[in-house]
């Protein structure tokens, strides 16, 4: 289970997250939606503490870290928490100096200290899963954006994380290429992978999330099933935001 409680985050004077609470059940897929600057990406990045809140508590599985504005979190706890999360970035961020296979093996070798043989086996398995095994020896910059993102998903899954965090996973891709990424994510969802994603891709949110959370100005406005949020939102701000997206894609 992932739980964020009373998260307060400031960038300088700017209050980005205002006491946000969020709980994600094991095996669920949650989509964070909201206008640009609503804090959805920041909230997502608070889960693996790429952004560290000034106040609040972050719990991932058996690791809990409390923030009260005094000092940085314990390094071992931070490490333990990050090892239970995997992350997919908007612009992929594959390691350009490593091949596709090496990218996926990297965490297993460096962090988990697996043997090369075992890491290679696991990496190839994951590349198969995302349909990229035929490019195992290619350099990332020779791949299309969709292919890079699928490799990035395999890399994030390698250490068997408890939750997969996706920060706008399809935003850098044109619709055709984003389709192949959505397909991979949908397959993972079917297999019961816990996922949290920040997205403004309604197709992604509507088709694979079972919980949609609407954020605005750093506050959680409303949450519910995709059907409810997109068809009959109860909060006027949610309705307004969803209406701006109407016609972009018909939620399923």
């Amino acid at each position, binding site marked *: 289970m992932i739980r964020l409680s009373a998260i307060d985050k400031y960038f300088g004077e700017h209050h980005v997250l205002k006491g946000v609470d969020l709980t994600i059940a094991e095996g669920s897929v949650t989509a964070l939606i909201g206008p640009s600057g609503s804090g959805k990406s920041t909230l997502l990045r608070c889960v*693996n503490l*790429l952004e560290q809140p000034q106040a609040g508590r972050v719990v991932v599985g058996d690791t809990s870290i409390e923030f009260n504005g005094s000092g940085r979190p314990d*390094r071992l706890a931070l*490490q333990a928490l*990050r*090892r239970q*999360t*995997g*992350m997919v*970035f908007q*612009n992929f*961020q*594959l*390691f*350009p*100096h*490593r*091949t596709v296979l090496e990218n996926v093996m*990297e*965490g297993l070798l*460096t*962090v*988990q200290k697996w043997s090369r043989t075992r890491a290679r086996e696991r990496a190839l398995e994951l590349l198969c899963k995302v349909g990229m095994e035929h490019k195992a*020896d*290619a*350099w*990332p*910059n*020779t791949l299309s954006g969709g292919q890079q993102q699928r490799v990035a998903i395999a*890399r*994030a899954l*390698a*250490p068997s994380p408890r939750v997969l*965090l996706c920060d706008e996973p399809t935003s850098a891709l044109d619709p055709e290429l984003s389709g192949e990424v959505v397909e991979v994510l949908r397959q993972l969802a079917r297999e019961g992978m816990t996922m949290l994603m920040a997205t403004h891709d309604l197709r992604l949110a509507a088709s694979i999330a079972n919980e949609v959370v609407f954020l605005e100005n750093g506050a959680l406005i409303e949450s519910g099933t995709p059907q409810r949020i997109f068809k009959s939102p109860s909060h006027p701000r949610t309705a307004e935001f969803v209406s701006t997206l109407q016609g972009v894609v018909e939620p399923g």
Partner: protein
Amino acid sequence: MPDWLKLMWDSLPPLLYAGVVFTVPLTLLSFACGLSLGFVSALIRLYGARPLVAVVRFYVWLIRGTPLLVQLFLIFYGLPKVGIVFDPFPAALIGFSLNIGAYTSEVIRAVIDAVPKGQWEAAYSIGMNWTQAMRRTILPQAARIAVPPLSNTFISLIKDTSLAAVLTVPEIFQAAQRIASVTYEPLILYTETALIYLLFSSVLSALQQKLEVYFGQHMQRTGGPA
């Protein structure tokens, strides 16, 4: 064989000997020490505590703002006045290392900074700690960008080691001076000396290109790893 060619031929062994025994070791050692110093200084500039950053800035400012020849004289002829005495070779080594350290620290700082922040985040996201991220993700990418500017510094250093002659280190240039002073053939001897330096730096430039290819493998548009 004409006289000038014979003189060149006869002086080749002592000049090459001086090169192999003094110039090359002095260059390699100074570069190794200087690069280590530059790396530590760069890390301090990037991540260090304020007082340490100030120390490093002062060091870089001082070394870059004063002539290398004056620095070498200070170390070898000046410091003995306050009881600090070095032999010629160590004095030259210290002088060159301090110099290389100051110049390379700026290069190293810039190339580490040039690696996108997202690469740190990607490394952290798969569970790496700072040291692992630096060693496995950031430095290999920084190294590729660093090869050309560092090679520049290195080639300058090979030539600058001729300044060690004034500290009585018997390197190539000093050997040439000695032979020129007994043969009265400065034109021939110094031409030969220039050619020897040219040879050394050409070999090293070729090495630089190999390094660039090595670090830049992934920049090729086709194919897999070498």
